[in-house]
């Protein structure tokens, strides 16, 4: 930084370094690889014993559900989609921040992303795994799930390609595959580093297998860099398309409160909003446990808070726009659906949603709060809660009170609904903690690439 300000007389604005503490290449390798190679801190064992227990409960509940049927949930006519679908939309949405960070911020050359992209991508993959479980078990006869694959079969049946539920299957499947490839390609150079550092034979073999023999020669880097760029370009439309397709599960139906054209952009903004809240929650915990304050600086957190403020405002705008259209459209069922949301039997859920998603992010207008870890941690948790309630309001309130008052109902969750929700968090955190333990959570090669000394013109006089 000093070299830059001395040599460039024209500069009036000196950027803060992306990585604090002026680290060398070696200290980056040491501090990130050290986490994987050393013993995990006590807190890690405590965390994984809790989340692991919940994950085991989740798996047993899935077994019970397949045995007993989906009647153990609170699903009843008219509310045939309950917490299972709410959880699915919630978890798919969480994933979107990871893709935005890895793909869109890469194309926009936002170099601060290198500190957070690896674990945001991991979060995406874990969240989509958890999300995918819900529709799979929601079908009831999970063993017939392969019917959604377009496979020739003895029944002569083919899936209905005009159904949003099938689009969803393809969209989420592609999303998972692309996210996984992106994450793995990013990991290859770091796995090679771990292979070369490995102390034991077993570690050397395991890391060696997954590093695929990477040697970091420039003749390899040139293909690698283009592949990474292509994946970023390919994944960028996915950030927008996946949750748009999820929203068509609702928007293509004729139910009041679901049948609106605003759904795709509204869902995408909500997904990025909730995803950043989850990235923030995880980042704050991980940087605390592993003392990564130099890598994930307060500047990184502030930038994420700004994105949450923007997307939170978009979500707030969508809420009010829905109301306006419900009135302006002149359709009395649509009008009722929205009044019913805000003042009907689910008003409590609606106002929790408004408070968490519209009121809470407003704290980020104040720079001091935007840079305060305690404030943003509380805000990120509240936003996660609010976004779960948003999906609950959309899914359940529309189904409970549709056209005919004689068929109205009120959804009551059972203990199993709660168990599945809590258990899904258990599985998510278990997968995430395993990732923190066994893989480099920060992209070492990318972080080294943004250090000032990595620029071949560093310190040169022009």
């Amino acid at each position, binding site marked *: 930084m000093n070299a830059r300000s001395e040599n460039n007389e024209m500069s009036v604005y000196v950027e803060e370094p992306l990585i604090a503490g002026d680290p060398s290449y070696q200290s980056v390798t040491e501090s990130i690889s050290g986490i994987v190679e050393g013993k995990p801190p006590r807190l890690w064992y405590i965390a994984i014993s809790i989340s692991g227990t919940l994950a085991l409960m989740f798996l047993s509940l899935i077994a019970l559900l397949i045995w007993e049927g989906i009647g153990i949930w609170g699903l009843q006519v008219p509310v045939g989609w309950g917490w299972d679908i709410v959880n699915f939309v919630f978890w798919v949405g969480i994933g979107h921040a990871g893709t935005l960070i890895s793909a869109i911020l890469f194309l926009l050359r936002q170099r601060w992303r290198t500190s957070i992209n690896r674990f945001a991508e991991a979060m995406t993959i874990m969240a989509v795994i958890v999300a995918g479980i819900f529709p799979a078990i929601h079908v009831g006869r999970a063993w017939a799930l392969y019917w959604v694959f377009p496979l020739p079969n003895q029944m002569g049946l083919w899936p209905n390609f005009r159904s949003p539920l099938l689009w969803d299957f393809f969209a989420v499947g592609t999303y998972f595959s692309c996210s996984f490839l992106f994450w793995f390609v990013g990991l290859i150079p770091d796995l090679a*580093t771990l292979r070369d550092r490995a102390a034991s034979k077993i570690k050397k073999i395991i890391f060696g297998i997954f590093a695929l023999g990477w040697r970091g020669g420039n003749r390899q880097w040139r293909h690698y860099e283009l592949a990474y760029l292509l994946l970023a370009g*390919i994944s960028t439309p996915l950030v927008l*398309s996946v949750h748009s397709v999820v929203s068509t599960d609702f928007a293509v139906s004729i139910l009041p409160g679901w049948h609106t054209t605003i759904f795709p952009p509204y869902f995408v903004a909500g997904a990025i909003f909730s995803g950043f809240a989850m990235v923030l929650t995880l980042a704050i915990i991980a940087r605390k446990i592993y003392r990564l304050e130099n890598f994930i600086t307060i500047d990184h957190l502030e930038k994420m808070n700004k994105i949450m403020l923007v997307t939170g405002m978009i979500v707030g705008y969508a809420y009010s726009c829905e109301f306006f259209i419900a009135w302006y459209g002149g359709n009395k069922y649509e009008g009722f659906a929205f009044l019913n949301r805000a003042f009907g039997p689910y008003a409590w859920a609606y106002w929790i949603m408004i408070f968490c998603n519209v009121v809470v992010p407003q704290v980020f207008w104040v720079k001091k709060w935007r840079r305060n870890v305690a404030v943003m941690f509380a805000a990120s948790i509240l936003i996660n809660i609010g976004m779960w309630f948003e999906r609950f309001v959309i899914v359940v309130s529309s189904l409970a009170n549709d056209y005919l008052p004689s068929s109205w109902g009120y959804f009551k969750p059972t203990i199993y609904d709660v168990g599945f929700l809590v258990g899904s968090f258990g599985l998510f955190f278990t997968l995430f903690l395993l990732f923190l333990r066994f893989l480099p959570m920060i992209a070492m090669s990318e972080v080294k690439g943004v250090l000032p000394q990595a620029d071949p013109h560093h310190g040169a006089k022009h």
Partner: protein
Amino acid sequence: MAKLKIIVAEFADPAALIQAAEQIRGAGYRDFDCHSPFPIHGMDAAMGIKRSKLGYIAAAFALTGFSGAVLLQWWASAKAFPLVISGKPFFSYQAFLPVTFALTVLLAAIASVIGMLVMNKLPRWHHPLFESALFRKAGDNGFLMTIESTDPQFDMERTRRFLESIGAIAIEEVTD
């Protein structure tokens, strides 16, 4: 066949490695490579290597995914299992867009990754360089140049002296 020999030379920083690449190329060497923990900006030009052709592979597979998806949906919805659904035509292309898009993207992504690995001749789990102690720095903080004995210019003594003259700070010889 003679055993493959490789000279590994370490340079101080990215700028030194770029300079060395220009000089070794100027001296007529061909089978050399520059290893670094991250891609160095401007190294392709210094080594005189062209832009990767991976994009064409990805594009070809994207096209395959697109046409495959259209064909699949046409076959399933209009030929093999025609069902009237909400009075829509059997081949209702508007409704086929999401799946077409998804499969286009999926095939392009898979082709980018597999294409990259194939062009890099990976996976390759054994390589003489893995025996080198100096090479272990490639993933950490080493800026290394390797020259293989398959190069017609290669001569253990002469090449070694040349590398020292252009600023190598450490040199190691590896034999397969």
